[in-house]
């Protein structure tokens, strides 16, 4: 083929005739350019000479699409902005230290004293309990679904885990408070009795057998964030290069050793990213915790058997007194802290996740 195209151009300068058979890959392109040079203008020249036509529909469609992209960015910015603007007057009227105080007195706009220390403790404690329980289980499920379960069953099994995310949080709250808490009572009493000398398991500000404490809340939260962590972990684990897995198998590794030496190192950072996403969800979970945690005026004892309110559940509980701007502003200030912390956790999660598996490549 190369020779036939060249044979037509024997009359061309000898230098070009010699080079074209050498680089066979470029011959066709080269020869067609040569062919077109005198009589017909080449397509690139033609398009270069004419202006690019942009139709009205295209321009309209593109600006609508781009506008919607900008709109999404604007939404997030305005969430931060609006919350900040509404929180500032309330923060100025606050008589207590917002960051260091544990009290929450917002009913009278003339005499407000509120701080977030206790809210932060309950929020962080319940989320961490949830994370400690959910992480190993979710990792196990993800490994089971990607590496162990038969191919036919993996998909329906994954669907079952995803169903956990479809149950509304208010229903988890009911289940946790009315069904799970009584069942957990002996467990809570045993932990409190046996390990009570460790401060974190000591008596909280409500009796350990009440069930409406951080311990129960953490377990329910663990169930709620399980599908999130599992979903991310499943995806990164399934992306493990099969060459690595096969290599390990060829070296005589058992299934467990394959997981330990290839799948786990490959997906670890993605798994941690997924766990952070779960943490973000747990920090902001509202209604389940509002239903489970009993509200108490006593300060926390920094034990997992404390009760109280998280940022989110405090806001939900306070919705009844939303009657003037300053009171609402106090709750918005708490919401702003929650927004900033979930923003940070989510951004961190995405950052970790996006780095996952890159080093291995």
């Amino acid at each position, binding site marked *: 083929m190369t020779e036939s195209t060249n044979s037509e151009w024997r009359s061309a300068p000898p230098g070009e005739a010699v080079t074209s058979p050498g680089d066979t890959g470029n011959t066709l392109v080269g020869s067609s350019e040569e062919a077109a040079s005198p009589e017909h203008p080449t397509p690139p020249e033609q398009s270069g000479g004419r202006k690019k036509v942009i139709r009205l529909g295209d321009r309209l469609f593109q600006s609508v699409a781009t506008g919607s992209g900008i709109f999404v960015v604007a939404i*997030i910015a305005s969430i931060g902005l609006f919350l900040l603007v*509404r929180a500032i007057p309330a923060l100025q009227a606050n008589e207590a230290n917002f960051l260091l105080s544990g009290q929450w007195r917002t009913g009278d706009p003339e005499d407000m004293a509120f701080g977030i220390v206790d809210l932060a403790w309950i929020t962080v404690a319940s989320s961490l309990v949830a994370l400690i329980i959910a992480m190993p289980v979710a990792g196990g499920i993800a490994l089971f679904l990607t590496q162990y379960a038969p191919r036919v069953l993996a998909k329906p099994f994954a669907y079952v885990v995803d169903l956990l995310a479809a149950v509304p949080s208010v229903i988890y709250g009911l289940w946790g408070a009315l069904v799970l808490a009584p069942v957990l009572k002996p467990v809570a009493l045993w932990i409190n009795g046996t390990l009570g000398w460790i401060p974190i398991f000591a008596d909280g500000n409500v009796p350990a057998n009440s069930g409406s404490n951080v311990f129960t809340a953490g377990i329910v939260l663990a169930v709620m964030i399980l599908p999130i962590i599992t979903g991310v972990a499943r995806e990164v684990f399934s992306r493990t290069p099969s060459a690595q897995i096969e290599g390990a198998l060829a070296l005589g590794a058992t299934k467990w050793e394959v997981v330990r030496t290839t799948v786990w190192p490959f997906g670890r950072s993605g798994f941690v990213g997924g766990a952070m996403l779960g943490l973000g969800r747990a920090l902001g979970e509202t*209604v389940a915790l509002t239903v489970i945690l009993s509200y108490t005026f006593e300060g926390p004892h920094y034990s997992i058997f404390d009760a109280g309110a998280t940022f989110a559940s405090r806001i939900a509980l306070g919705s009844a007194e939303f009657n003037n701007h300053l009171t609402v502003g106090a709750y918005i200030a708490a919401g702003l802290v929650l927004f900033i912390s979930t923003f940070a956790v989510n951004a961190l999660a995405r950052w970790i996740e996006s780095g996952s598996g890159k080093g291995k490549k």
Partner: protein
Amino acid sequence: MRTDTADLERPASAPAFQQLGLGRKIKNHTATVLFGLAFVIAVVPLLWVLFTLVQRGLAPMLNAEWWNHSFYGLLPNDSGGGVYHALVGTLEQTLVCALIAVPLGVTVGIFLIEYGRNSKLARTTTFMVDILSGLPSIVAGLFIYALWITTFGFDRSGFAVSLSLVLLMLPVVVRVTETMLTIVPDELREASYALGVPKWKTILKVVLPTSFSGIITGIILGLARVMGETAPLLILVGYSRAINYNLFEGPMASLPLTVYTARKTSTEAGEYRMWGAALTLVLLIMLINLLATLLSKLFAVKTR
């Protein structure tokens, strides 16, 4: 002559396949059992929750009154009544939410895949959609409160709820559209361009119809998710035991709000309403999930 029979009978090299050591075997089996167990641990709460719901919530639902009456005029101890008012509220609020979130979300998805590929704005938007998908529902509620009620001066209403649900549904729609548009093979787009079809028409007539079934499934799953949201409702709308069709005025019930409110009535009738509404809500969500599966089958592109 020395004949060493033992030497001759010994294989020239060690056997290629050796038995696993006991320690490795035990570790391997333990790991398998533990991973399987993790899955069982996840299934237990799911079945437990569903069992509890059916056990306690089935009785009220079997009454015909449950589906066409409200709780209007019922005292804490009165049994009877139904969740018609809450069904109306839930369906109206989520439908209006979808009417706003779906066109917006699909357009954002189109922008990300068809126009903005790898541009700075597209990357920022993707990041913001990620952040939006992690936005706590209570913060979405507070934002709409600060915007719609405090700043614009409107009253608390079902429409405010719809607006906050838009924030929660938007990332789902965008994500789904993005995924589905990436799957559409470039050959289809190129074929369309080759025929001289402008880009916007290619997107509307070729790309979107091809990915339609996936997008519709995602939208419906997103609907099912926002349907169960409770937190923004607590802030943005009052509960009403009567039927209210007007999204823009007055308190309006919805299923999650009914569950939450009925929890405060600690009578037998209150429990009856609470579990009944909870089971109704889960059934509605399951029904919608089922619908999503059916629709995706129905609209699936026929690929020979």
